[in-house]
């Protein structure tokens, strides 16, 4: 009964969303204030209904209602409570509902914090968000209904995919969706401006907090997914250039370009049409991502269960998004000036290069992701594009970006004197080169690419530190926006250093080991104590015990597991890690070599600087969240309130 209530709430929400997508829009076009004013209340109502539906779905999981097909497919009696709760978004149907709910929450945020916007623009924006919601909710209801019944109900469910029974997986999808749907706001603002046929001078400032918030969440979501893959898949890798990962990386790249280009549009009134285009592309890439992940068009390690009707539906959504918005763009893109002119050495020119590089990087990822599909469509070959391609083309695009990241924030708008720049950076360049060249030696190795990368990482970190210090010393204020930018850039520097280190100096050993044996990896002794059987709530595991010692001192006991889950009979590797500031030690159990002996394949990895990688991502996201707290965005609101 409750389940039908949830289903009904979804249908009713769709009706309200259709009203949200039509009444305020008609009101804006006809100039009727009362119609436009309906946008806010409609958004709140549809959010309440979607929240109700979501709680019903959660209740079905918590109370083991296996008469719901989705629950029966993704839960079981033995599944612990926290995973029953997260299982609600552990499959295709529920994750779509979460997506729609998150979008609705963002619409509410726009309704709440966007009251200072001119009413027609406000109504149009929420109307466009209504179209997006209608598309996604329609998709959920018509092809992926999470409330579908399964009668007669089975006695037990078939359990959540063991890979998803992990704390990292609880938070990864919600954060990722927060990022994805946030770009629906900037998209809606762009489309609203195109419908009106004019870009208000404040348009970029309206967009900025939304774009930066979405970007910060997307950063966190991607990092959390990578963090999960690192220890959960048992291979010790952190990025695989898998199509699904690429699907989230592409909007991140254009989103990064967008927040930078927005700063030019906001501060100088330049790049405005380009910014509009980026807002459209970034959103379209999130829908393209949904298509790639959920249609089965591309093989991937974590594609959802697929169904052709779903693929056609999302493709239709993508087609409407792209054709509609790009046709609107071709027809209505307002004629605005290019903004004030700028010299080759200026902050604008740096941001222009930043945008070009980021968009090219995104294009190479798109190319690598779709190339196998294109060849298959042309009937030429079946192949897959792997990390070597991406690393080869991605690195040369990223290196100049890192170089410019150190200079850009120091430059003035309009024109900067070359001599002045040189005076403020020559010592930094010198220190960065010396530091970067010496840095790899601390690991006992050397290589040109890694040294160059580390020089650039040191360069970014130094430039951030020097700007903050010199501002404080001169008694200048450090607004939140600037501090946030610096933190994010610092995060990039730290992240890049970690990537260079881990890619050059990681040690990966696949060994045959039996209990009682010891091995030394990177100066650490690993002693395989024993192997024992451990019974989990819904799995049985073989647990190895490894004592790790370093210079005669015992560091820790690592307990990697090989689990077999009861329902799916799926073997799962649970790696054990000892994390440290400068390195992770990573042990995972491979396969038993034979049934009679107790020898196992054991993987022992030494991964330098992994903590830096996660810290770098956190800094980037934190920087974004600090930047939106800047007074400039608030003053605007107070002034107009």
């Amino acid at each position: 009964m409750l389940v039908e209530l949830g289903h009904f709430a979804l249908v009713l929400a769709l009706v309200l969303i259709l009203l949200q997508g039509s009444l305020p829009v008609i009101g804006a076009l006809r100039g009727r204030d009362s119609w436009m004013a309906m946008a806010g209340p409609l958004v709140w109502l549809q959010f309440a209904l979607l929240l109700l539906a979501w709680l019903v779905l959660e209740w079905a999981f918590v109370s083991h209602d296996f008469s719901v097909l989705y629950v029966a497919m993704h839960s079981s009696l033995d599944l612990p409570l926290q995973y029953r709760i997260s299982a609600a978004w552990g499959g295709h149907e529920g994750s779509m509902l979460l997506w729609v709910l998150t979008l609705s929450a963002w619409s509410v945020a726009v309704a709440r914090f966007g009251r200072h916007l001119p009413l027609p623009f406000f109504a149009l924006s929420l109307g466009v968000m209504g179209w997006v919601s209608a598309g996604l909710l329609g998709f959920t209801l018509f092809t992926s209904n999470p409330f579908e019944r399964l009668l007669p109900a089975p006695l037990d469910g078939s359990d959540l995919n063991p890979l998803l029974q992990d704390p990292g997986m609880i938070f990864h999808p919600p954060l990722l969706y927060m990022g994805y749907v946030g770009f629906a706001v900037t998209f809606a603002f762009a489309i609203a401006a195109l419908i009106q046929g004019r870009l208000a001078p404040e348009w970029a400032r309206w967009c900025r907090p939304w774009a930066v918030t979405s970007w910060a969440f997307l950063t966190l979501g991607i990092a959390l997914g990578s963090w999960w893959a690192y220890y959960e898949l048992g291979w010790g890798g952190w990025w695989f250039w898998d199509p699904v990962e690429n699907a989230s990386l592409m909007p991140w790249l254009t989103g990064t370009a967008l927040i930078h280009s927005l700063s030019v549009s906001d501060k100088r009134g330049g790049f405005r049409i380009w910014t509009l285009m980026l807002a459209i592309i970034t959103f379209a890439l999130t829908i393209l991502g949904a298509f790639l992940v959920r249609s089965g068009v591309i093989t991937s390690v974590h594609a959802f269960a697929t169904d052709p009707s779903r693929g056609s539906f999302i493709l239709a959504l993508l087609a409407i998004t792209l054709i509609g918005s790009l046709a609107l763009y071709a027809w209505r893109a307002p004629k605005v000036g290019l903004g004030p002119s700028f010299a080759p050495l200026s902050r604008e020119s740096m941001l222009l290069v930043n945008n070009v590089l980021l968009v090219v990087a995104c294009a190479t990822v798109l190319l690598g992701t779709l190339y196998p599909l294109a060849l298959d469509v042309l009937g030429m070959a079946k192949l897959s594009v792997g990390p070597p391609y991406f690393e080869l083309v991605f690195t040369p695009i990223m290196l100049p970006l890192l170089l410019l990241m150190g200079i850009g924030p120091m430059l003035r708008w309009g024109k900067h004197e070359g001599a002045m720049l040189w005076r403020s950076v020559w010592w930094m360049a010198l220190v960065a080169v010396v530091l970067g060249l010496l840095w790899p030696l601390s690991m006992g190795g050397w290589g040109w690419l890694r040294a160059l990368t580390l020089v650039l990482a040191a360069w970014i970190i130094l430039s951030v530190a020097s700007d903050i210090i010199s501002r404080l010393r001169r008694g200048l204020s450090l607004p939140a926006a600037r501090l946030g930018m610096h933190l994010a850039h610092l995060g990039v520097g730290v992240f890049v250093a970690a990537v260079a280190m881990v890619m050059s100096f990681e040690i990966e050993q696949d060994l045959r080991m039996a209990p009682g044996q010891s091995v030394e990896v990177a100066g650490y002794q690993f002693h395989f104590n024993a192997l024992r059987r451990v019974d989990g709530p819904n799995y049985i595991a073989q647990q190895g015990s490894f004592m790790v010692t370093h210079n005669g001192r015992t560091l820790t006991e690592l307990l990697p597991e090989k689990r077999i889950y009861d329902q799916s009979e799926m073997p799962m590797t649970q790696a054990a890690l000892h994390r440290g500031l400068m390195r992770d030690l990573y042990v995972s159990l491979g396969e038993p070599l034979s049934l009679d002996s107790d020898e196992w394949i054991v993987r022992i990895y030494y991964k330098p600087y992994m903590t830096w990688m996660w810290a770098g991502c956190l800094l980037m996201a934190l920087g974004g969240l600090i930047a939106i707290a800047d007074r400039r965005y608030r003053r605007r609101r107070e002034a107009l309130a």
Partner: protein
Amino acid sequence: MPMRAIPLLVALLLLALLWIGLGLNPRELPSPLIGKPTPSFSLPLLQGEGQFTDSSLQGQVSVLNVWASWCSTCRSEHRHLKTLQAAGLAVYGLNYRDEPDEAQHYLRQLGNPYRMVGWDGDGRVGIEWGVYATPETFIIDRHGIVRFKHIGPINQQIVDERILPLVQQLEAES
């Protein structure tokens, strides 16, 4: 106007690509063997004296499963092979790159669903069959023509929806 329409044209091309792509199945790795006679081979039996050859696969619809004792996924699909055996199918095994002792122990422990198991210690015959990951399962019709190949473990769904219907259809063919 024409300049501004360029993004639209690019988007249309992309959509066309995705639209055609939707009709293809990326998981279906075509095996060049499908529709062709089985490669000829001759292997010693894993258990007992004699040879397992391509002619063993002729005269009835048969299932050939490639497995090894070191392959944990093979272990998880094993019960489905027993289901196939119980359904009266002729299931044959190709023991791929394995130690005979361990393979025999594996069958003693889990039960033996195979009519015959050929021992392919160096993996040569596996190469002829285009094996690239264990387990793999082939269906061969009574004339010795390969009709189906599945890479990875079989499960109940594949047994019910692909294997059993295909076997019935092949048995119905003269």
